[in-house]
């Protein structure tokens, strides 16, 4: 069953495409540096084709139907790509919504003398394009979220290195806020590294942690307890003056945990605990060795 709109589109396809392109370009926010004209033209033509095919199948209401699959795929592809390239949601939305205007123009020209049909068809097209634009927004945001998730993963991976500073001593500089998810990653990395290297001392350096509240302290205590259960000692270092103040004001009890102000003093303590002595070499004895 073919409906009036699809016939009109079929007849005036070239014109509609042209006016659609014009509407897209008149939007003053469009940044033509992000995409070239041929690409935009290609995308628009592809979308109009699949829209026409979907309309000709007779389904005018449900964009989740099988006939709309190609158009959903195309739209999804375009919006995810735009999300990755840094388009604004407005630009992506305009892409679909400006098709509305050019379709209305074509319909108006065709059914000028039959206002009833014109009204019906415009409502139909309107609804359809509205749901399509909502779908576009959805996929656009999904694309953005994927980017954010990927970046979070990357930050997590980068920000929790476990460094072997000496035989049996591990250091773990923590940079950025400690939330539950990161604590989990830090803990897992640290414990796995303790098993892998057989280290008996771990230094947790928090000089890169901007603020310590009771939750962060709770996470630190958890990490220290887990390390202790594994059979290794944990020293917390890099406690700045403000952090010491907050910890005391919040009434957090860190008395069971070894704490040091700097990584250097923590390392010294670790050497003491392992019975390692580090001392300056006498210059003369060095020369005699040479």
């Amino acid at each position, binding site marked *: 069953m073919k409906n009036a709109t699809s016939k009109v589109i079929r007849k005036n396809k070239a014109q509609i495409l042209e006016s659609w392109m014009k509407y897209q370009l008149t939007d003053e926010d469009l940044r033509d540096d992000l995409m070239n004209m041929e690409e935009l033209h290609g995308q628009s033509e592809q979308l109009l084709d699949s829209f026409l095919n979907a309309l000709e199948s007779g389904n005018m209401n449900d964009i989740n139907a099988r006939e709309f699959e190609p158009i959903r795929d195309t739209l999804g592809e375009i919006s995810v790509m735009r999300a990755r390239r840094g388009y604004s949601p407005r630009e992506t939305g305009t892409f679909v919504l400006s098709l509305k205007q050019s379709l209305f123009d074509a319909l108006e020209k065709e059914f000028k003398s039959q206002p009833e049909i014109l009204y019906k068809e415009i409502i139909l097209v309107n609804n359809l394009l509205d749901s399509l634009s909502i779908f576009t927004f959805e996929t656009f945001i999904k694309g953005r979220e994927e980017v954010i998730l990927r970046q979070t993963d990357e930050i997590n991976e980068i920000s929790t290195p476990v460094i072997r500073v000496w035989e049996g001593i591990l250091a773990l500089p923590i940079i950025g806020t400690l939330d539950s998810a990161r604590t989990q990653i830090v803990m*897992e990395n640290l414990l796995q590294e303790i098993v892998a290297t057989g280290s008996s001392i771990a230094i947790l350096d928090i000089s890169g942690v901007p603020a310590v509240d009771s939750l962060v302290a709770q996470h630190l205590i*958890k990490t220290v*307890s887990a390390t202790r*259960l594994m*059979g290794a000692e944990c020293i917390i270092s890099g406690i700045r003056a403000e952090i010491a103040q907050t910890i005391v004001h919040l009434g957090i009890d860190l008395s069971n945990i070894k704490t040091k102000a700097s990584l250097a003093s923590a390392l010294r303590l670790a050497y003491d605990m392992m019975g390692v002595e580090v001392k300056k070499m006498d210059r003369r004895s060095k020369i005699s060795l040479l």
Partner: protein
Amino acid sequence: MDRIPILKMGPFLLVTIQVDLYDRLALNLENDLITMVSKTEAKGVLIDISAVSIVDSFMGRILGNIASMSRIMDAETVVVGMQPAVAITLVELGLTLQGVHTALNVEKGMELLQNKIGLNLLNQEEYQEPADDTDL
């Protein structure tokens, strides 16, 4: 009934848990171990849980119990070889096993026990050899 073997090594008792502990088994272990401590007058108990991958609050409590009971009977308890996942689980359950000593592996655990009871291997050999002679 399944039992976990308890080995006597000098003044210490060595328990290696090779299977996942279920409640009955853990209770038996607690019982057997304390009986052995009193029978052999052991100075230290070393529990190797490197093969245990699943732990619950009951198992955590049993470990704590063994440690407390042993201490009353003048023996130190060392738990060695805990898996990272097990350690995280116990911490999340709020069981930090206060009063239980821990070590990375059996070797380090033995060292720790020897330090704890103020003995070292050399002294002990010197002490034991003349004892053997008199027996002969």
